[in-house]
């Protein structure tokens, strides 16, 4: 009996903790009138089920294009960003050029800079570069500011530094130049770190709000988060549709969740030790 107690407590805690999300899922399939009924909350299996909310959400929030935009944005940031940041991190880790330490020091200082501080002038920079006119440029505007990240460069450099020098020397003797060394030897050797960076960036940017709010003025460039916010603030307020939209906005991330949580290898970033 004593052994069962931690188990029972844990399951109760888990259910209680996830209750809001479980409710969200159930309520998204409930007709509008049912959502705020006190009785309904307890009776998850009673009450009716409907797909009307999803239909409304799809139509009103242009969910199709919103999802596409969000996916494009995140995919762009994660993939192109990975290449750019690993290249820089490798240079800081393994290429001995004059002024390296100083330059890296500057990069390190940028790590703590929150995006909110520079969001306003960044808006003007984006506008000056023409990143607000038209669909393509607007998507670029959602992606470009987040490609090069000081933290990712720092983190990846830490991992490059842990690679044994003999590996590099063996490749040198085999005839590898800098690019071949980077692409064929160093990069494949830090796969776990790459996965961590991908996961962190994915989570961060899927939920991006302030920047898309500032820059996505046109309807066709709206991300799913902005679409959700619009549904939420623009009348008529259809709670069911809002909930359905919320569920849709969560699905892609949850779908990847099993894969994601395997790669959440949290490091103590101050010491760079895994």
């Amino acid at each position: 009996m004593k052994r069962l107690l931690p188990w029972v407590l844990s399951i109760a805690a888990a259910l209680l903790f996830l209750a809001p999300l479980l409710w969200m899922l159930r309520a998204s399939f409930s007709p509008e009138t049912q959502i705020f009924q006190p009785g309904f909350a307890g009776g998850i299996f009673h009450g009716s089920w409907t797909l009307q909310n999803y239909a409304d959400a799809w139509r009103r929030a242009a969910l199709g294009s919103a999802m596409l935009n969000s996916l494009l944005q995140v995919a762009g940031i994660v993939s192109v960003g990975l290449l750019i940041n690993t290249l820089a991190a490798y240079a800081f880790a393994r290429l001995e050029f004059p002024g390296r330490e100083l330059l890296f020091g500057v990069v390190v200082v940028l790590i703590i800079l929150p995006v909110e501080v520079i969001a306003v002038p960044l808006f003007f920079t984006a506008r000056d570069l023409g990143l607000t006119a038209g669909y393509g440029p607007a998507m670029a505007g959602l992606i470009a500011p987040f490609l090069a990240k000081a933290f990712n460069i720092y983190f990846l450099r830490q991992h490059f530094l842990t690679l044994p020098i003999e590996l590099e020397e063996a490749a040198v003797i085999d005839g590898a130049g800098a690019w071949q060394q980077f692409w064929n030897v160093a990069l494949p050797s830090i796969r776990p770190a790459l996965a961590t960076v991908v996961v962190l960036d994915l989570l961060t940017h899927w939920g991006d709000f302030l920047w898309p709010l500032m820059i996505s003025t046109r309807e066709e460039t709206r991300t799913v988060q902005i679409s959700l916010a619009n549904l939420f603030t623009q009348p008529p307020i259809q709670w069911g549709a809002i909930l359905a939209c919320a569920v849709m906005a969560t699905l892609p991330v949850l779908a990847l969740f099993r894969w994601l949580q395997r790669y959440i290898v949290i490091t103590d970033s101050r010491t760079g030790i895994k």
Partner: protein
Amino acid sequence: MAQVVIENLTKSYSGKTGANVVAVNRINLTVNDREFMVLVGPSGCGKSTTLRMIAGLEEITAGTVSIDGRVVNDVLPKDRDIAMVFQNYALYPHMSVYENMAFGLKLRKLPKAEIDQRVREAAAMLGLEELLDRKPKALSGGQRQRVAVGRAIVRKPKVFLFDEPLSNLDAKSRVSTRTEISKLHERLGATMIYVTHDQVEAMTMGDRICVMKDGQIMQVDEPLALYNRPANLFVAGFIGSPAMNFFHGSLRAQNGEFRFDSDKSTGAKIDLVLPRSTLSSNLQSDSGKPMVMGIRPENLHLEKAAVAGKTIEAKLELAEPMGAETYLHLQTGSTPFTARVAPTGRHEPGQTVYVSVDSDRLHFFDPTTGEALRQSPIHRTNR
């Protein structure tokens, strides 16, 4: 022709305290074509640094390295026509055995068919055919080292460089891989330079051995020559296991022969009279000067009792039965020494024993310079 010539090679850098550290000090060495040259010495002697300078992984402070008559100081490692086997294998962890071996060839843009042929040839030579698809982490230490060797073979280099390749292996793998490398040398007939701190490896594998200490070459010669005619105290004590025994004293002329008087401070009880014929004229004229006499453990024999003019009296500290023979750890006065004797016989610690000496197997050294005292002086830097 794949001859490697090192002239006045020097490596120095500023150490942790800012002082200048000289790792390799103006050494000269010629490795002949097809030769298996072993660089051996204690850690810190500069052997690895020398090898890495030959490879091009380490910057050369002064002097030159030439391969096949061409000075390669400023040549990139990949253009020196060398291949290297590292102590910790340095296999690419995400590539299969096949890909590890093919990597260097792919970088050189060799045609696929040739790459495949070379890799399979090397794999066959090393018994790796079954393992070609495996990743390094699925291999044992010995197998990984063979892959590292295979990676070197496929490049068909002029010179093979080995940096303590057996140090990370367990004892059994070490012996088997050692023989494999030796057989490889027979088969390929390539020039090989091999670095190790283990004198057993050096003795068994090398055509010639270069003994190094503190960045300098102590002696270069064939294994048995080093064993039988060491040029200085260091080489005499480094080569051979158990090590050569040393006694401090001097020679004194007595009745047409020479008596070895042990140094009073050691209190060693040595009763040794040497006929003229066993000593060179130089040694005879050096009588009276302090010297170090060296004798190898196998040249000491257990006697039942003291024999005049032929024995050393000692106390038995410890007997180590090795099976085929027994090592007796003895002490005379304050000087410890070891004898290798037949495995039979009871030995009690604390016993007093008498040991006779093969008087034609003695070595004499100058105690200050460490040089061997022989017919003619031997130069420090040998070719």
